[in-house]
């Protein structure tokens, strides 16, 4: 199977390798932008969700549940079909993906942040109150600093998930790494009929190489946070 003329050679023919990596870069940069927009928004929404205003909480909860209930792929389609038409602007697939993923990230982060904020022991908050702190001071001096070490690993995990989800970009006509792979398979369909195994296998590996380290970092941070909480 590893013969010189076997399918794996097309990975290294022409510019194929750089093109594949370029496709991966497209995916990763979409994920990156979505995180850049989504995380700050999510932090704000998460902080709002621990406030006592029931209407606000219900609205934000609904927002989260929508993204929880509807598959990401379907959300992507919703944005893909509806966003350009309704907004009356020209938007390319990447932009749509950034917006859709960004709002999804915001929803997930809002839950991470909320969870982390309420995991701060009540007596810590009481202690802050007993010093006369107001809501913002409690958030800034007590809740946030004591919960970031819970937020960070969850956020990194989410980042890995967003990167993996970018594989769906293929379906909204973004030239992602899979699309490039398919272009390569087509261009070489005569010379290398078995290229599918190698190209898809390689793409599989690429995703793993990007996402696995993130997962490991998240796990290490999680462990550290846990140890610190116990010690």
């Amino acid at each position, binding site marked *: *199977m590893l013969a010189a003329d076997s*399918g794996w050679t097309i990975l290294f023919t022409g510019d194929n390798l750089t093109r594949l990596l370029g496709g991966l870069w497209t995916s990763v940069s979409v994920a990156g932008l979505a995180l850049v927009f989504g995380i700050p928004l999510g932090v704000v929404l998460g902080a709002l969700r621990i406030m006592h205003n029931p209407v606000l909480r219900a609205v934000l909860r609904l927002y989260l549940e929508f993204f*929880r*209930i*509807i*598959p*990401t*792929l*379907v959300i992507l*389609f*919703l944005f893909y*079909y*509806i966003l350009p038409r309704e907004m009356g602007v020209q938007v390319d697939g990447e932009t749509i993906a950034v917006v859709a993923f960004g709002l999804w990230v915001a929803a997930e982060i809002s839950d991470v942040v909320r969870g982390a904020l309420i995991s701060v022991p009540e007596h810590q908050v009481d202690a802050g109150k007993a010093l006369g702190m107001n809501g913002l001071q409690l958030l800034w001096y007590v809740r946030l600093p004591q919960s970031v070490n819970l937020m960070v690993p969850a956020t990194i995990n989410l980042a*890995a998930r967003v990167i*993996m*989800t*970018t*594989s*769906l970009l*293929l*379906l909204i006509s973004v030239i992602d790494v*899979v699309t490039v792979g398919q272009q390569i398979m087509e261009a070489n369909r005569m010379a290398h*009929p*078995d*290229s*599918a*195994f*190698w*190209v*898809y*296998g390689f*793409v*599989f590996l690429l*995703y*793993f190489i990007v*996402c*696995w380290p993130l*997962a490991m970092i998240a796990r290490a941070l999680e462990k550290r946070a846990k140890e610190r909480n116990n010690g």
Partner: protein
Amino acid sequence: MSWQVIQQALPLFRKAFVLTLELSAIGVVLATILGLVIALLREYKVPVLSQICATFEELLRNTPLLIQLFFLYYGFPSIGLKLSAQACAIIGISLLGAAYMSGAFRGGFSGIPTIQVESAKALGLSPLQMVRHVTLPQGLTRSVPAVAANAIFLVKETSVFTVIAVPELTNTARDLIGMYYRTDEYLLMLVVAYAIILIPLSVVLTLLERRVRRGTFGD
């Protein structure tokens, strides 16, 4: 929005709905069973097998289902292994699900306080008796929230089967859009269909989660 378009598409959506349900159910059940086995192999550090399981878990959790499916469906035949689309779908979702479920179960087990294990030991329980009477029941209970979250995640992931021509909900909706260009109607039906599956599921799982927790730990 045209009611007529919706009505005409109903039979197709109904079929897709049933298929999505079936695939989800099979996937979740297989994933749970397999995930528990893997979790136990890893928890009890069974030599060789636990390392294999760990590698398997890392590989599957850190790659997209879509690529896994492409690899299974388009890649494997070139090395002589051909599986039907549905088989690929079920294998894909079960293996991915097992990797996630194993994590959920291991999380449940590792949440058991050491004092529980020690007092089981102090009563002279053998490792197997300990698993049977103490760690398994408590670990399973503690896993319920994460298992429930994974179940919902897996149901949603079945939408990715669209890429290997499995006529489930997403595939059907996209197909209809491609043929008749009635985007709004079909998208609406798609969203509603998932809502019909997932809202009750998440409500039931939340209730179950609450009951189990209250039942065992009283909070």
